[in-house]
């Protein structure tokens, strides 16, 4: 099966894009500068990500709310139109099928913005759960382009490209819909659904448009100057170091289908007071008797912690690193790891096997940016 491409594939060479395979797509891991420079550009000015490979699954119909509340861990019933929430979608064991944002477009009209690598899996999973619920489930990914503009100058840049009141959009809220008609704001003259959301820890916006409008919006944003400086295109490499520093989890690293999601420590996205939902019982049990917990850590010795490295206590393996780096903003060897609960305590010392070399580390909060 050949790899897919977003509407921006032909733009990558203009900026020196280095292409890798990701989630079944050919995507840029970085552009012409370096991962470090791209990461810093987002924190200090603004950067533009092509995230068109992500999936958009639409759930509509009179049973939308009870159906979504059954398949998701969070509660959509109290959402207002134009708001966004974060949720997990679990299996019966409380492990994660996917994690994503849910947008309430209208009454009984919700958009699930899913991980690129999981779009097809999620679509089948959701359809298989419909049963007697009166809902429609559509995968509209192919007709939608998505860009993320992130960094302190994001709003200023978009204001130069729009007459609409983008500044009025609060965090975790949006304006527009996927019909791209009169309900939408315009960016560079193109109708978009714009949300004040992002995955970097900086202020920023996610911009959804018609697939054929993605390239002109991309070009317009990259050409916009604020005091002589322009935003840069940013690849997937920096996307990972940015989200990691900001304490944001990644499916495949911090979330897997065989780890109860209560171990992640983001229980605000799990509403146990709802009626039954997929995984509820397993999650209640795991919450009452947890075996492991996700923690942040910082090495006290030298080296670089990486995904997959073991956490040991003597001869015993007591955990595993899920993500680790010496990242560009917080220039220290830090990581996230699942660790057996007895040792998963702030301030505790653990031992990380850096390949064959044991190095000590201290457990710290994984909101690394907040605690810099």
């Amino acid at each position: 099966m050949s790899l897919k491409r977003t509407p921006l594939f032909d733009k990558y060479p203009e900026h020196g894009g280095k292409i890798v395979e990701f989630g079944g797509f050919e995507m840029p891991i970085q552009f012409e500068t370096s991962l470090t420079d791209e990461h810093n550009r987002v924190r200090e000015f603004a950067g533009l990500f092509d995230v068109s490979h992500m999936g958009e699954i639409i759930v509509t119909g009179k049973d939308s709310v009870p159906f979504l509340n059954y398949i998701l861990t969070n509660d959509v019933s109290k959402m207002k139109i134009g708001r966004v929430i974060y949720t997990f979608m679990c299996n019966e064991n409380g492990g994660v099928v996917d994690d994503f944002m849910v947008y309430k477009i209208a009454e009984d009209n919700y958009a699930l913005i899913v991980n690129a690598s999981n779009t097809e899996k999620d679509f089948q999973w959701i359809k298989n759960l419909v049963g007697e619920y009166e809902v429609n489930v559509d995968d509209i990914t192919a007709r939608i382009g998505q860009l993320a503009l992130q960094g302190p100058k994001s709003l200023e840049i978009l204001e130069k490209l729009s007459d609409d009141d983008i500044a009025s959009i609060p965090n975790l809220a949006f304006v527009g819909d996927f019909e791209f008609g009169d309900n939408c704001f315009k960016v560079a003259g193109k109708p978009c659904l714009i949300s004040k959301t992002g995955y970097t820890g900086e202020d920023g916006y996610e911009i959804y448009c018609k697939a054929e409008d993605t390239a002109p919006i991309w070009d317009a944003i990259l050409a916009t100057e604020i005091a002589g400086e322009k935003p840069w295109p940013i690849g997937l490499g920096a996307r990972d170091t940015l989200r990691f520093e900001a304490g944001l989890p990644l499916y495949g690293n911090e979330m897997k289908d065989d780890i109860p999601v209560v171990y992640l420590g983001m229980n605000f996205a799990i509403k146990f007071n709802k009626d039954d939902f997929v995984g509820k019982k397993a999650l209640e049990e795991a919450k009452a008797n947890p075996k492991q917990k996700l923690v942040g850590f910082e090495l006290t010795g030298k080296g670089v912690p990486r995904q997959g490295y073991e956490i040991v206590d003597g001869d015993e393996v007591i955990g595993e690193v899920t993500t680790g780096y010496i990242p560009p903003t917080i220039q220290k060897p830090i990581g996230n790891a699942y660790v057996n609960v007895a040792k998963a305590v702030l301030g505790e010392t653990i031992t990380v096997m850096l390949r064959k070399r044991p190095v000590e580390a201290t457990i710290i909060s994984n909101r690394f940016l907040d605690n810099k």
Partner: protein
Amino acid sequence: MRIPEDLRYAEDHEWILVDGDVAMIGITDYAQDQLGDIVFVELPDEDDSLEQGDSFGVVESVKAASDLYLPVGGTVVEVNYELEDTPEAINSDPYEAWIVKIKLSDPSELEELMNADEYKEHTAE
């Protein structure tokens, strides 16, 4: 890509500068460019006795760890400890930021190395 004429080269992108029976070893401009920003270098111990093909350290970039393999065997006589504080020197000056100096156990192993032209062809492949 810089490929100095006076150096010898190994297939996995180390450069070697020979002075008598001591070989100074680092990684090439091509290698540092492929790796990206280097954040950490794991160095061997002085007096380690190593064979051709043995790992003599690790170069870590933001994204990945890369083992370093000795193109020629011998005893580690000197290690560039400056790399512990400024690993990024390998990116900016790959031919000045040497990693180890090896006292050769078998100088005939040098004959297996490439010259600058051969290495240039190798990187073009």
